[in-house]
């Protein structure tokens, strides 16, 4: 066994966004500590500034076509990784802006809140890059650690404590499953790099190992039957954190899932398609049916999130490059619609201190802007043209039609109708019901900014999706050898400096 480290300074430039963010968040910690008089809102803007620099860096990499691999192929920076990093950094910026007013509710450690959000964002950025089981585990746990604390941040609120404890215990259990799965795969193959695992012979131990890994990743994305933590955690967590949890870790986990299924397990596609079809059908149906009965908007969005993940899994089940493009585009539309919907929930909750759907009655009379924004986001989540969600759903269904997964598509279509029902109930409450309290609501500038960005994204992606689809297609070029037919040869990846 020989070990070597062939990393030069110029190689490390591949990790520049992560390095900038690490330094920036340490800086925020120091500023928070050294200047106790500084209003904490300034830290929010400082964090957003740091993320803007990272975002500019990532976009520059993407335009320049920077790519490569570091640490013996364990850290890869390709266009797919860049896509997910841009998505995560963008979502984090929106969440930070949406948190600005909400943070006033915390009695202590207001500054550390921003630090932990940035730390989780850093973990998820790293999650877009690992190319082996060890880095996958480490980055996955890194991103989750910040969330364990953030979910329980409302110490005075029993629901938040309960949410934090449930999330922690189930999360640690999932981490245990993941390590057990990894140990089985490593024991059977002696390899940890994804592309090297693909080249080894198949054994029953590997099946169990990969099922355990899938169960743990399924926990992170909240797919049925690994969803049990979602409703209570989403309900109890501070709402900006719920918004963050509902999109960023899921997107980052999809980056890992795609690499795992398309690289390590490429040769076994016929077997895993069935597994994914099953999980996808269960997630969509369970999420949508249980969402109907919800009285709390955060719980409703939690269940709708389970159903949306079922939709994304359709793209993975298609198992083609087109399905992969559809996943990326769908996640992009989901960021805008979901963060937007949660921004409205945060704004309403800041003003009337309630998350009950009943209290949304007559929202149109009290704040036409909030009601209209919620209408657009809900319709986008339901998939109504000409909004972003429609193109996303269309794209993902087309990918499945090409693979002739007709049962999955039928179930998916029925589920769209079911989801329409509970989304429209909220719309009816907002527009038709009479408000109990008629006082008008004024929205703060930072919340307005988040909602406008969400609206702009939802409309632009819906009306003119071409450049974004092209971006998604370009991001997955490395999977272009995935023919639409079922039989696929083991993949050789065009990685490397």
């Amino acid at each position, binding site marked *: 066994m020989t070990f070597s480290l062939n990393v030069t300074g110029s190689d490390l430039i591949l990790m520049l966004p992560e390095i900038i963010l690490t330094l920036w968040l340490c800086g925020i910690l120091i500023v928070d500590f050294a200047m106790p008089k500084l209003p904490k809102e300034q830290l929010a803007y400082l964090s957003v500034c740091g993320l803007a620099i990272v975002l500019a860096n990532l976009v520059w990499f993407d335009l320049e076509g920077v790519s490569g691999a570091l640490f013996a192929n364990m850290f890869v920076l390709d266009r797919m990784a860049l896509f997910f990093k841009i998505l995560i950094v963008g979502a984090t910026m929106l969440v930070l802006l949406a948190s600005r007013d909400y943070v006033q509710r915390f009695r202590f450690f207001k500054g550390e809140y921003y630090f932990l959000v940035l730390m989780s964002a850093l973990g998820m950025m790293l999650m877009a890059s690992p190319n082996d089981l060890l880095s996958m585990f480490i980055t996955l746990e890194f991103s989750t650690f910040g969330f364990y*604390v953030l979910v329980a941040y409302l110490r005075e609120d029993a629901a938040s404590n309960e949410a*934090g404890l449930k999330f922690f215990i189930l999360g640690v259990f999932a981490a245990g499953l993941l390590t057990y799965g990894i140990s089985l795969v490593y024991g059977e193959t002696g390899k940890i790099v994804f592309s090297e695992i693909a080249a080894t012979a198949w054994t029953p131990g590997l099946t169990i190992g990969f099922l355990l890994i899938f169960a743990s990743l399924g926990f992170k994305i909240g797919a049925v039957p690994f969803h049990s933590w979602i409703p209570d955690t989403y309900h109890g967590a501070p709402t900006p954190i719920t918004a963050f949890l509902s999109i960023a870790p899921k997107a980052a986990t999809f980056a890992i899932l795609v690499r795992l299924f398309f690289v390590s397990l490429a040769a076994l596609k016929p077997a895993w398609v069935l597994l994914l079809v099953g999980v996808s059908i269960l997630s969509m149906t369970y999420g949508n049916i249980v969402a109907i009965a919800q009285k709390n908007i955060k719980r409703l969005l939690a269940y709708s999130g389970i159903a949306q993940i079922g939709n994304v899994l359709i793209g993975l089940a298609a198992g083609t490059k087109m399905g992969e493009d559809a996943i990326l585009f769908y996640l992009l539309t989901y960021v805008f619609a979901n963060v937007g919907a949660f921004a409205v929930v945060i704004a309403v909750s800041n003003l009337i201190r309630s998350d009950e759907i009943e209290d949304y009655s007559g929202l149109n009379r009290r704040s036409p802007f909030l009601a209209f924004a919620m209408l657009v986001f809900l319709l986008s989540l339901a998939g109504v043209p000409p909004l972003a969600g429609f193109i996303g759903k269309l794209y993902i269904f087309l990918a499945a039609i090409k693979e002739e997964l007709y049962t999955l598509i039928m179930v998916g279509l029925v589920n769209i109708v079911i989801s329409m029902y509970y989304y429209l109930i909220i719309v009816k409450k907002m527009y038709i019901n009479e408000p109990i309290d008629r006082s008008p609501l004024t929205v703060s500038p930072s919340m307005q900014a988040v909602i406008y960005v969400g609206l702009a994204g939802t409309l632009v992606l819906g009306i003119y999706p071409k450049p974004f689809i092209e971006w998604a297609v370009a991001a997955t070029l490395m999977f272009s050898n995935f023919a639409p037919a079922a039989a696929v040869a083991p993949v050789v990846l065009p990685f490397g400096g």
Partner: protein
Amino acid sequence: MATLFFSYFSGVIVLASILVVALRNPVHSALALLIMFFHVAGLYITLHAEFLAAVQIIVYAGAILVLYLFVVMLLNVKRDEHYHAQYPLGAVLGVTILTEALLLIVQHSFSKETATADLGATDGKQVLEGNTETIGEALYSTYLFSFEVASLILLVAMIGAIILAKRDLFEARN
């Protein structure tokens, strides 16, 4: 000589493990567990796994067991009879695991040939240098990325622990 050490360590391990579940006082049980951990570490040393032995003592005996003792003392659990009602369940699980272990031993004959064949498969570097050096070298070269990320995890965990635990102090002061 090796057989002598092996029978001493394994004998104490079995005895101490039985004491852990049989003793009525939780503190005594924890101390028996401590003896067990030390002897497992001794067993690792006879197998030339000195790194594992050090980790066994530092992590298990040093950290996890102290945590157990804290919990036992803070919660003031004395002679809790509650768990002794679970003997039937314990017996079923114990017999199952014992059968599995016996089956494994019967199916694989752990002879000297297979042991040396396994050693020959690697280039024997860790035998020459000692495995602590080898692990250290691997951590700081091939697995540097994971190692650095792990240090960030510790930073988050530290700050998270302060946020979750220290809040009561602030509340008392205000």
